[in-house]
């Protein structure tokens, strides 16, 4: 009954899945892009729906979509991502982010102000990052700093609470407007990661009246900050964020960036039920719903016309193979399974076009995506059967299909099972009884006995983010999300080469080679790429969403 939009960013796929449930017929045609909308005037106010953020509004602790949406207009990072293409644009706080060897990066800052009038300096970043990386502060986005030298010293030893160090040795302030970052390994696309929320600067006020991290007054200041963040973005908060209700933002008139906010004020309203939010947009009491209820997908395009929009999201859903299980150790078995699944049929009939079939692992929202990189993802039932016959796979034993409960995956996993049965002659058994809290530890413990559903959403728009954290040897649980337990030195080496490439173009080329290798070994069968749908009232225009699924608040114009 209750559809919960709020989930972790990384599991947004399962939510969108939870939302996609009706059958048949095509979705709406892609409406024209944001550029087609009329240029509006500045002024006016509008409202935007979120569900309650899960964490205090501290950038490095906001890894789920709702908190990130609230923070989006409040902060400007070192660089920003283009709304449509996700390409990195140097329109943020950093004037330049440069390196000769891809290992030591020099960041030069522009003159920039926080909402409290203080300057954004090198310290604002250095202190924020040291805070985020320190395990004692238990920040959800801590892993973003793991590739900076000295990260290990900020992780408490087992049984200890306080780590050995408090500052990352790879992070150095040169002067007020310059700092350097030294990585443990070269990473050509490092700047691409820096537009992410976790890297946002923090003002001195975050560290108490003295502005010094690690002093006694920090905790109280941080609690206050978590409710009423002081950012450096185009909008500022007027009062504390009230859980269950929301917060009001006003335009920050002294904003240092080029793209100032259009509307005078924004009401961020909390809803728990997407149906209610949708009804409120219909009734004109709410201006933007960044999500719509699943059953409205057929009617929304007609009802809202130009005011219904959709785009690709960064979400990627896959069926992982337990490569640790003897039955799935042979890559031919995995290839056969993948070829026996008709992805298009599932996205058309079950998801009603709210998902696209995936024929690669690198998402369409990042550079380097290729539409049909995966040879073994094409639907070829006969070849699949022949290929399976070459292996010693015992088709008389049923195959377990795993997915987490209560998130709307039953229908499509069932469809996959039916296709496997029809095309390969294997019976299947659905294993969908575990909630997420039980399902994830099971994935980490090699507990799956057959193909399992999992998803991924990007942290930053680089192909690397769809490869290294999911399939590299260093990402094996508990250190990462390589839950298929795939380990191939050749793949690791290619990713490493890509990271160390001379240019972004070269990096992408090598990442694609790594992807090719992966799609041959097929530790996971790519299934779907997600899409976002959103609607808005007649009062607003220029309602654009980026690949992270966040409405670009400062671009929205109010019709007056």
């Amino acid at each position, binding site marked *: 009954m209750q559809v919960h939009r709020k989930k972790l960013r990384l599991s947004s796929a399962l939510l969108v899945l939870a939302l996609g449930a009706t059958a048949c017929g095509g979705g709406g045609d892609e409406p024209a892009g944001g550029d087609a909308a009329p240029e509006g005037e500045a002024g006016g106010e509008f409202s935007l729906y979120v569900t309650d953020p899960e964490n205090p509004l501290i950038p490095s602790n906001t*890894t789920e979509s709702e908190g990130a949406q609230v923070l989006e207009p409040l902060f400007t990072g070192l660089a920003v991502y283009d709304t449509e293409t996700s390409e990195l644009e140097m329109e943020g706080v950093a004037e330049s982010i440069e390196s000769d060897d891809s290992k030591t990066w020099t960041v030069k800052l522009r003159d920039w102000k926080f909402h409290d009038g203080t300057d954004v300096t090198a310290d604002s970043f250095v202190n924020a990052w040291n805070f985020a990386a320190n*395990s004692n502060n238990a920040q959800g986005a801590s892993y973003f700093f793991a590739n900076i030298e000295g990260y290990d010293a900020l992780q408490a030893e087992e049984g200890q609470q306080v780590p050995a160090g408090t500052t990352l040795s790879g992070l150095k302030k040169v002067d007020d407007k310059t700092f350097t970052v030294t990585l443990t390994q070269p990473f050509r696309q490092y700047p691409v990661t820096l537009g992410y929320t976790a890297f946002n600067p923090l003002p001195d006020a975050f560290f108490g009246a003295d502005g010094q991290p690690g002093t006694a007054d920090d905790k109280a200041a941080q609690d206050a900050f978590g409710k009423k963040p002081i950012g450096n973005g185009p909008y500022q908060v007027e009062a504390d964020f009230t859980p269950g209700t929301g917060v009001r933002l006003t335009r920050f008139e002294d904003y240092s960036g080029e793209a100032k906010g259009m509307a005078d004020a924004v009401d961020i*309203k909390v809803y728990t039920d997407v149906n*209610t939010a949708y009804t409120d947009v219909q*009734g004109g009491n709410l201006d933007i719903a960044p999500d719509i209820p699943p059953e409205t997908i057929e009617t929304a395009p007609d009802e809202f016309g130009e005011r219904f929009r959709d785009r690709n999201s960064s979400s990627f859903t896959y069926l992982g193979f337990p490569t640790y299980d003897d039955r799935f150790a042979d890559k031919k078995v995995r290839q056969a399974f993948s070829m026996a699944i008709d992805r298009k049929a599932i996205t058309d009939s079950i998801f009603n076009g709210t998902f696209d079939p995936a024929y690669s692992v690198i998402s369409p929202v990042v550079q380097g995506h290729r539409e049909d990189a995966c040879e073994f993802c094409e639907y070829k039932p006969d070849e699949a059967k022949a290929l399976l016959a070459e292996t010693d796979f015992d088709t008389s034993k049923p195959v377990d299909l795993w997915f987490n409960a209560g998130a709307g995956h039953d229908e499509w996993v069932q469809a996959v099972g039916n296709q496997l049965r029809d095309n390969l002659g294997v019976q299947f058994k659905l294993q969908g009884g575990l909630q*997420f*809290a039980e399902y994830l530890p099971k994935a*980490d413990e090699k507990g799956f006995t057959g193909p399992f559903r999992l998803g991924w959403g990007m942290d930053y728009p680089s192909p690397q983010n769809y490869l290294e954290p999911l399939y590299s040897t260093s990402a094996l649980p508990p250190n990462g999300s390589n839950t298929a337990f795939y380990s191939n030195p050749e793949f690791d080496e290619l990713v490493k080469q890509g990271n160390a490439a001379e240019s972004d173009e070269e990096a992408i080329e090598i990442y694609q080679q790594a992807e090719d290798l992966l799609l041959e070994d097929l530790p996971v069968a790519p299934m779907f790429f997600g899409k976002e749908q959103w609607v808005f009232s007649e009062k607003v225009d220029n309602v654009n969403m980026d690949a992270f699924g966040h409405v670009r608040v400062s671009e929205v114009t109010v019709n007056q």
Partner: protein
Amino acid sequence: MARYIARRLLLAIPVLFGASFLIFAMVFALPGDPIRALAGERALPAAVQAQLNEEYNLNDPLLVQYGKYVAGLAQGDLGEDFRGRPVSDILEQTVPVTVKLSLVALAFEAVFGLIAGVLAGIRQKSFFDSLVLVTTTLVVSIPVFVLGFVAQYVLGLKLGIFPIAGVASGFSGYLLPGFVLAALSLAYVARLTRTALVENLRNDYVRTAKAKGLSPMSVVGKHTLRNSLIPVVTFLGADLGALLSGAVVTEGIFNIPGLGRAVFQAIQNQEGTVVVGIVTLFVFVYILFNLLVDVLYAALDPRIRYE
């Protein structure tokens, strides 16, 4: 009377401890790792996960966790949820909302339920009586979420009489959800009142009263209704307890930031301290209202006395 109340309140203490321990144990018994689920598909670094487990005492055995909880409670610390928000803050924000919603619902129930019940009772087998019978049967058989969505769609969206959702608009925002919440109980109240009234009207004292030449108004109002109210008050008291324990579905449909929503979310996130804090409050509310109902009996029926 005062001693009776004091005794009942003292008895509540062990009940509250027992209840909170049971709830704590149930949340503890939920399978899975809440911190791992909080992180999503990308696991937290081991040291961060360990730090969070430590902060929320998740590594301790059940009794130790409960002991730490009670120790905190003794100092007025209700604990905090996984985002570091104190449970006392959650209560402070949600309780007033739920109280308002409950009172609106109770007012609907009591006023409309009683009027409908009395009118049906004194005009037995009339058209109005049948109408009450049919409508209450209908309302009782409709699930609350259907009623909620229909009311929201017709009265909120199409006719625009009431706000669609939320309480930002003030009191008017509580009317529609309050009515939806009251609908089911309203039907019960009407039927209870009618049945009790019909039964009491057959009594000898009513005939005597009529024979004395009292007006029908005072026969019903002064003599019969008061006697008929005992089961209704019992029901209303228990129902107010239920209303205050939050209405997960109604609060969801009308986007009302009350207790029901808070406890639903806490159960989903396996936030033991939040669930225990709120549910223990529910238990306390139930105990209190049961006591209130018992005290009201004495006021309604002088034959009932408490020593």
